[in-house]
């Protein structure tokens, strides 16, 4: 399958990895104090990708649904946790909201892509299921984390107005809809930006990969179009879901804004560590 591809030896990879010293030199020269972070990030890139290479190699060869499905669940959980780690303020249940909204939206849209559009057989074919779910997850997690972050920051900044609206007799949704709209917009913008420049400014990784592997650019482009719409649908669904779940946590059925549930993330982490 990889006949068109030039094989890379570990030495070749090491040469590319040396480029990290460009970043290191910049950090030292400009006193950015990023050397430790840089070293850690570089190490993670290498270790995580080598690990996933071995895992995928094994899963592809083993080719059983009970090997593919747990990997997909694990990827989803990691995306869900990563999606809940943004923003200065958080609330109890944010991680669960992030996981649920990413899981439901990404799996729903991936199912449409894999079973209706690409029509893979058997349904768990790992060469398709894993990378496509991965791309959808990566983008959905961006939308979800931006959406939740904007929701909590808007509600913090506009707390007085939200409470005034409630005091005037607004229902909880009437009071929350301004921040909620802003949050959904914030979560959808990155995908829209990406769709506007794809092919002109950026050549997406998957498309590049297919072309490198010897696929005809026309086929690669068709795949990319499908992927872009899958990503757009999933990040929109995920963002809306996450914002609505946050809304339900922060506004009670008695039309109250439970502002005390919004806590400072660092203070909460410290309390947890202490307790």
């Amino acid at each position, binding site marked *: 399958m990889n006949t068109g591809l030039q094989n890379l030896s570990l030495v070749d990879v090491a040469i590319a990895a040396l480029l990290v010293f460009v970043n290191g030199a910049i950090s030292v020269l400009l006193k950015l104090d990023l050397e430790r972070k840089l070293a850690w990030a570089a190490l993670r890139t290498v270790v995580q990708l080598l690990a996933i290479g071995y895992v995928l190699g094994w899963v592809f060869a083993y080719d059983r649904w009970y090997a593919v499905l747990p990997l997909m669940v694990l990827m989803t959980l990691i995306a869900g946790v990563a999606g809940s780690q943004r923003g200065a303020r958080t609330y109890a249940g944010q991680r669960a909201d992030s996981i649920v909204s990413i899981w439901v939206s990404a799996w729903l849209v991936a199912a449409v892509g894999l079973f209706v559009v690409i029509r893979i057989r058997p349904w768990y074919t790992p060469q398709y299921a894993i990378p496509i779910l991965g791309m959808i997850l990566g983008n959905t997690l961006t939308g979800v984390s931006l959406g939740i972050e904007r929701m909590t920051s808007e509600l913090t900044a506009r707390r007085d107005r939200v409470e005034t609206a409630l*005091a005037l007799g607004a229902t909880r949704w009437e009071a929350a809809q301004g921040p909620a709209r802003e949050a959904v917009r914030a979560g959808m913008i990155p995908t829209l930006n990406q769709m506007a420049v794809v092919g002109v400014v950026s050549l997406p990784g998957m498309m590049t990969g297919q072309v490198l592997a010897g696929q005809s650019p026309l086929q690669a482009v068709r795949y990319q179009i499908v992927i872009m719409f899958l990503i757009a649908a999933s990040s929109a669904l995920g963002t809306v879901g996450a914002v609505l779940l946050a809304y339900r946590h922060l506004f*009670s059925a008695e039309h109250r804004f439970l502002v005390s549930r919004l806590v400072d993330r660092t203070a909460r982490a410290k309390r947890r560590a202490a307790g």
Partner: protein
Amino acid sequence: MTDSRAAAPPDTAPLIAAQRIVRRDAARNQTLLEPTDLTLDAGERVALTGPSGSGKSVLLRALALLDPLDGGRVQWRGRSVTRSRIPTFRRHVAYLRQRAALLDGSVEDNLRYPYSLAVYRDVSFDADRVRALFERAGRGADFLERDASELSGGEAQIVALVRVLQLDPDVLLLDEPTASLDPGTARAIEALVAGWFERGADARATIWVSHDPAQAARVGTRQLVMRAGVLSAAPPDGETTKSAETVQ
């Protein structure tokens, strides 16, 4: 009188009746409001004083059902307020915060905002009435076009009060509305509230939180004091007896 309304309490039921209401701060493990009973009858004007942080706002917000209670209940006209009726309850029992929170846009946009809410579907914005209210507060006809973000604190508070008064609430819960305002604006606020009260004095009531004893005497016919979460009727010279005790 054989229908279900026959069971409704007579009109003599108090506007608001709070029974053993409690508020706690779970995070700090503090009691903000000790079990409190309070009855507000139509025609009453209550002035509530007390040191800052003693729980005056906590009580007012609890009465407006803005914060979850940790005990007790609030009844409106002799009945508990179901979830779905809470917006209606807040239409009739209006809470005005210490610092006005205005929306982006003009003064008129702010005054029109409540009419976009479901609970005010049966009424509509009346520009003439609002102009008359502003005139009473010494603001000209062009005040409606002003940008809300350019108003002074006092002007913003007048807008917030007019926004509430135009909606004809039955009860006003005023949380130190003049605390940071100049005496002239404070008097304008007092005059607006007095005008609203007189138009329906036998059906309306206020609770006015103030830290100024002179104002409390002006705006209240019933004086209450809050100390460390405990509400009590103000004795005529409670302050002096208390300090005398501490001297001994």
